[in-house]
């Protein structure tokens, strides 16, 4: 039986891991390579790295980080942040990532999804969606871009369906409302988007404890965590044991 996945997310800026609340006030958390290795050894199922470096020139630093991770981490990882071209996607994949994540640039140029999928396969194209509850769209969920700062007026369900048609292989649903609150994932929003597509979905934003993860895994194929493991309040084995106790299939390495 296919296991539910526990994914750890690392935001990387200028080669360092950082974490913010509601996409702001970022703090330096350390070296992403050694953090990735630690999570791998503790049994994480997958990792995600978002490059939140502002300048394009610093991108090379991010690729270097990915290459170092590839040498020591033997579980899949996804990388993204500012991916606007097939060429940059290719650099990420050649650095050893299994998947590349597109977000703002895919909203601006939806063909980017199809272009990457045709060249490297749908399985490696992950659509990252920053979403928030809103009255501006018919489903009540709106897509945001630019790291959650800019409302687009786009309906999240329509965008998810369109992305699947264009060739996305997975969707990360990041709730701006829940992100950083530690009050739990936005299960309702996750469920609605998950039901709209036939590709796997990953819930993101709001994890405060293992029960939150169990709650959202009823509506998604994977759960993404950051703060609760970065700050050491929870460990990967501890979360996984809890998930397993609730009869949810999960890999115990």
């Amino acid at each position, binding site marked *: *039986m*296919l296991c539910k996945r526990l994914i750890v997310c690392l935001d990387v800026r200028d080669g360092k891991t950082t974490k913010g609340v509601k996409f702001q006030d970022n703090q330096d958390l350390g070296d992403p390579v050694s953090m990735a290795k630690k999570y791998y050894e503790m049994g994480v199922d997958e990792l995600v790295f978002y490059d939140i470096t502002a300048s394009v020139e610093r991108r090379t630093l991010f690729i270097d980080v990915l290459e170092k991770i590839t040498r020591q981490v033997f579980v899949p990882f996804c990388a993204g942040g500012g991916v606007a071209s097939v060429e940059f996607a290719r650099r990420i994949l050649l650095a050893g990532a299994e998947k590349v994540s597109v977000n703002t640039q895919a909203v601006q140029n939806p063909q980017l999804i199809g272009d990457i999928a045709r060249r*490297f396969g749908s399985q490696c194209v992950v659509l990252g969606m920053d979403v928030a509850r809103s009255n501006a769209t018919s489903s009540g969920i709106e897509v945001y871009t630019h790291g959650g700062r800019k409302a687009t007026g786009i309906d999240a369900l329509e965008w998810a369906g369109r992305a699947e048609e264009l060739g996305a292989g997975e969707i990360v649903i990041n709730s701006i409302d829940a992100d950083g609150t530690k009050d739990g994932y936005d299960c309702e929003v996750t469920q609605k988007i998950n039901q709209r597509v036939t590709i796997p979905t990953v819930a993101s934003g709001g994890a405060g404890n293992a029960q939150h993860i169990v709650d959202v895994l009823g509506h998604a194929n994977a759960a993404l965590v950051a703060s609760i493991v970065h700050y050491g309040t929870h460990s990967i084995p501890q979360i996984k044991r809890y998930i397993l106790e609730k009869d949810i299939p999960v890999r115990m390495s």
Partner: protein
Amino acid sequence: MTQGNVCILDYQAGNIQSMYSAVRYLGVEPRIISKVEEIELCDRLIFPGVGDAQFASEAIQSTGVYDAIRAFVATGNPLLGVCVGAQLLLSSSEEGGAKGLDIIPGLVKRFPKSVGKIPHMGWNQIAIVQEHPILDEVSNEKEVYFVHSFYMDPSNKEHIVTETEYNIRFASSIAHENVFGTQFHTEKSGMTGLKILHNFLMN
């Protein structure tokens, strides 16, 4: 037998960096090869693959790699195919009508929509249905990492080494003489995947 000249075939269709890193991590320095004439110089050949079977199939047919791989297999040296690289060991694929190497008879089929989410993406268990040296010290029902929308369906059940359940039961590893293929990514399957790779390199 020492591991000899271990080669990873780069046919420009997939990501070979992860495989290269995993083999190096196991203490073997692999060569990345992309020219047809280099294939016969290999003692062990890894045929990796991420991506589109049709693209991969066209890439290796147009460059004469098909014939070179068949000639390599005929020498009796070990070949490991991974993901699309395993699928191409079979006769043909429904993915874009891709032609396979036909080393192991069978088809590559698209998962029916009824199985659930496609691609089959994530960690799933391998049930060992036949003993094989490459699975030495790998316990039954261990989880490994899959990402695929098409699955291998060998004509002859004797070629199936492990099976995996995703609402249908499919062949997750196949073997024939010196050839072994895994649908899952050995290079991204944690300790279990590394053990299988180790067995391929050392046996």
